């Protein structure tokens, strides 16, 4: 009996750090059926080992890769599913609902909800905050001919994520407050 209790306690203790590590991690299906229908698909699954390996091979002399290196060093996973179709709404919304249900779990907050009737575009940005720190980021972007789901796990340093914006041409987004904050200086002017 005592041995059994001891083993149970050990199992729980071992499970706790694992739980902490997987917080922020969504179960993203491979979506093979969608990939077959798509004219183009991007599937990236980088767990902590592969992410670490990829991070090591980034070229610090390239500005965008140097910025990416600063971001990825504290991350434990990056997962992307992006599908592009030749016709409108070739993907059923049910495919996204499973993911949205996971994002209704405690800890996750939707910090940006963008709906554009004109472009028929829906974009939601979610953040998981645990112990006062951002541990998970999720983006669901639904456009007529493209569906993209992004999940980033780890110690998400929002400041470093902001640094990426200049390199990738993304304007600043005040993710902390959930408000948009245009800053014209960071947007490169059209040539």
């Amino acid at each position: 009996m005592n041995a059994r209790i001891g083993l149970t306690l050990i199992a729980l203790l071992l499970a706790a750090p694992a739980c902490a590590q997987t917080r922020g991690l969504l179960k993203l299906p491979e979506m093979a059926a969608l990939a077959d229908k798509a004219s183009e698909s991007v599937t990236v699954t980088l767990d902590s080992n592969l992410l670490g390996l990829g991070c090591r091979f980034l070229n610090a002399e390239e500005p965008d890769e140097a910025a990416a290196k600063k971001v990825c060093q504290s991350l434990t996973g990056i997962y992307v599913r992006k599908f592009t179709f030749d016709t409108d709404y070739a993907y059923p919304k049910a495919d996204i609902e499973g993911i949205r249900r996971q994002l209704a779990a405690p800890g996750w907050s939707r910090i940006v909800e963008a709906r554009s009737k004109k472009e028929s575009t829906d974009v939601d940005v979610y953040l998981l905050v645990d112990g006062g720190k951002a541990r998970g980021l999720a983006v669901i972007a639904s456009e007529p001919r493209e569906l993209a789901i992004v999940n980033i796990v780890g110690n998400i340093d929002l400041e470093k994520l902001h640094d990426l914006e200049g390199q990738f041409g993304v304007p600043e987004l005040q993710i902390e407050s959930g408000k948009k904050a245009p800053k014209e200086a960071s947007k490169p002017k059209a040539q």
Partner: protein
Amino acid sequence: MNPESAQGEEPLLLERARRGDEAAFAALIRMHQASVFSIGFRMLNRRDAAEDLAQDVFLQLYRKLDSIESLEHAGFWLRRVAANLAIDWLRRAAYTRAAPLEDGVEIPAPPTCEDPLMDRELVRLLGELAPAARAVMVLRYQEDRDVAEIAAALDMPVNTVKSHIKRSLTAMRGKMIGAQLLTAEELS
């Protein structure tokens, strides 16, 4: 032979190359060799490396002929592969430093050669740019591609391409002024 005139003269060139016609494939090479070689040369700063790269690119084209839809697509495909391969090679640290231009390297002069010294300096400054920025500038100013095509070729957001162009031009202009090869008025 440029792709546009070839499209009128040789509508079946691609089809013939796909069917194993060596003369047709050789014609495709000649049509694009200057572009592919130059992308390699501007990126790697060495003729021998540029020729190795160009040869690799055409060998890849040979293997992928079935996926090439048109002569225009072939041009896009070759520029894309050449630029990305050159970036990969640079990143392997084989050619990280901008090597000085070789003695006697031909820089094709315009009919009236205005300023070969400035041309040489511009090429040297290009060689100092980081690989991705350098590739953007080569595709923009050597290949005369628009921002959207460069973004597609290098798998970059359009805004990043624009950023690279803006920052690279600013850096190069500043160094030209610093070297007193240009005045601020000449740049307006």
